[in-house]
């Protein structure tokens, strides 16, 4: 599956980058022209507590990139009491890119192979007890589940960002269920040796 172009862009500054931020900003501009501050506020609302981890300047940097690439056009709008602000509008090329993104079904992949092979190799070489490795890994994921769940419980009921946190919680639960299966398998294997 080819990565979207945005994945290759690495910002020099600190903070988390949204892999598909170019596409998201373009999509948010699809119904009406907006300025950067407004777009950032909409992203923050959607991400809730996770927005804290997002790089603050990324929206502005990305907008100027999109303008250079011809996906958006901008117009300076004067304000009486503040400096001018730029209002961005989606171009025809940008509109096409949004349509492509909406059709794209690529999905970030969970990666059980790496851990699976770690267990197999550890057991084969007698380097470590795979059951212990599973226990330690489960605790690492449970600590993450605890953080996600506390963020979700702190969020107001029914918020859109809560839906995102629920996604994080459910994926961790799926991974934990698989680790439980790993624990059972390697416990039984140990019993047979």
């Amino acid at each position: 599956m080819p990565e979207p172009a945005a994945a290759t862009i690495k910002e020099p500054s600190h903070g988390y980058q949204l892999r598909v931020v170019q596409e998201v900003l373009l999509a948010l501009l699809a119904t009406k022209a907006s300025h950067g501050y407004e777009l950032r506020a909409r992203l923050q609302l959607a991400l809730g507590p996770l927005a804290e981890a997002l790089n603050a300047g990324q929206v502005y940097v990305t907008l100027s990139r999109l303008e250079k690439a011809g996906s958006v056009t901008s117009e300076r709008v004067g304000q009486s009491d503040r400096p001018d602000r730029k209002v961005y509008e989606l171009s025809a090329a940008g509109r096409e890119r949004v349509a492509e993104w909406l059709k794209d079904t690529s999905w970030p992949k969970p990666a059980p192979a790496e851990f699976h092979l770690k267990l197999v190799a550890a057991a084969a070489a007698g380097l470590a007890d795979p059951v212990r490795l599973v226990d330690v890994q489960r605790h690492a994921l449970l600590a993450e589940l605890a953080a996600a769940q506390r963020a979700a419980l702190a969020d107001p009921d029914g918020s859109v960002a809560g839906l995102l946190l629920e996604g994080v919680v459910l994926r961790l639960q799926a991974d934990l269920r698989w680790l439980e299966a790993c624990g059972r398998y390697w416990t039984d294997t140990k019993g047979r040796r």
Partner: protein
Amino acid sequence: MSVIESPPRTGVVVRAHALEKEYGEGEGVVQALDAVELEVAPGETVAVMGPSGCGKSTLLHLLGGLERPSAGEVWLAGRRIDRLSEKALARMRRQAIGFVFQAFHLMDELTALENVELPALLAGRTPRAARRRATELLDQVGLADRADHLPSALSGGQRQRVAIGRALSNEPLLVLADEPTGNLDTAATLDVLRLLDSLRSAGQTLVIVTHEERVAATADRLISMRDGAFVEETRLTRGSTGRLGELAGLES
């Protein structure tokens, strides 16, 4: 659901030292607990996980004085309890410990309110004080409007919330919960875990034995057991959301 009050206290609430438990005799002897050491601080919530038969429920029974150890010691609030007489042990359980079980164990012929006030009455509180406390607790578990319902008229999640209210009736030093969501569907599990999380915030000392990851994730500290022993222990501190960003697909 409002915050549930609990009395201030210092020192270790419950302590297990060199705890052993064997079942059966001779060839058939099963070591259910093996050299377990545990200290639970005031206001701390501890979750214990592990496969079936790992000894986690046995541990809970020993901490609550429902069973006696084969060897080792159990201390509750500075008092050794594993050698108390049956009578003293029963009194200690009534006054200092609140139990929450998988199967709720409510009295079928009593209303929700009567179930919650029963432990306070048994501990010798006046009917008026017991009623006042039970009314408060039902409100705190979000069931004020179900006070006059019999357990049979309540959903599983509601029954477990009544049982949690009952466990808090005597302002216990320690609440022990054995698979509190074991019989519940997802929505009811979420209600109960919100309630457990509010108990944690309110500083209730709590030990939960559970299979359910989301319930375990409400605790301050997580312990995994295997074959009667502790094998892994982790503090589930309130961390940053940094790694969460990564899990949600915000890449660094």
